């Protein structure tokens, strides 16, 4: 469900960014693909999106590419170099980095990632970061981002869940397997299991 939050935020940011010379980069964690989601890979991907939006690739990146691609056989940027590039780019242009489902990032990677994000925030006035995740990572985020994070806890009301279920039932691609009784049971039973806040 955090994906819905992120998508909404990212779509809104992208629309606003068009007229404001801002960059929006996003990353959606996927628990099925964790091995490839190291901090270096994640921020490399963020950097790729930021660079893709520029008319010209920054000279430092072009030089690094030419040197490493041809001499060392394609060695990629290291985490510290990526962080530095992002700092530089977001210093001259508002840059929104959105990371969805941070709780799905393995803890060891998460620490490095949060420290890198903190470093970007500390050294760049144009960087803005948006994270979503489950509550158990809140302390970790506050610890690593050292008071820079504003947080908001979100929960559904019973009414929200009923609206959501109705919408999903309406999208059912095999409606023959559903009848009024079952539909009623679903609508009644699922919201009962969720505690409202």
């Amino acid at each position, binding site marked *: 469900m955090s994906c819905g939050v992120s998508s909404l935020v990212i779509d809104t940011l992208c629309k606003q960014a068009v007229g404001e010379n801002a960059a929006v980069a996003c990353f959606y964690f996927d628990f099925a693909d964790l091995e490839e989601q190291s901090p270096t*890979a994640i921020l490399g991907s963020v950097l790729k999106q930021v660079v893709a939006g520029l008319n010209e690739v920054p000279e430092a990146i*072009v030089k690094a590419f030419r040197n490493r691609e041809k001499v060392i056989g394609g060695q990629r940027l290291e985490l510290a170099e990526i962080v530095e590039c992002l700092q530089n780019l977001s210093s001259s242009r508002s840059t929104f980095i959105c990371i969805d489902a941070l709780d799905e990032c393995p803890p060891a990677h998460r620490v490095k990632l949060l420290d890198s994000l903190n470093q970007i925030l500390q050294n760049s006035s144009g960087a803005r970061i948006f994270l979503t995740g489950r509550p158990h990572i809140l302390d970790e985020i506050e610890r690593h981002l050292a008071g820079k994070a504003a947080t908001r806890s*979100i929960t559904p009301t019973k009414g929200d869940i009923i609206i959501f279920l109705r919408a999903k039932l309406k999208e059912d691609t095999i409606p023959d397997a559903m009848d009024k009784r079952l539909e009623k049971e679903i609508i009644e039973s699922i919201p009962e*299991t969720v505690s409202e806040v």
Partner: protein
Amino acid sequence: MSQHLIRDNINSWNTSIFNNVLNNYTVADEKSEILAWLSTLEPQRRHTSEPGGLTRWETGYYKLRNTGIGLVVFVRVTLMVQPYFATEVRGSARPSLGEGGDIR
């Protein structure tokens, strides 16, 4: 003389266009190479485990699994609210999410 000039102009024009095309091609081509070098991930891909699985009705038991209360963390950006769902129901109905119905 005038013929010579015209030919020179044509040559010059052709050369110029050719160079521009070549240069543009080179620049664009290198940019795409650099982007691929920066990352091979497809970050814009959104979750594949959306609750769309709810529509996969089958005979047998019905399970919808999701836990936790949602949290959105904003760093120096405006606040915004959207719900997560925390539900678990087992046993009574026919639909199934299928294997590993871990919905976020």
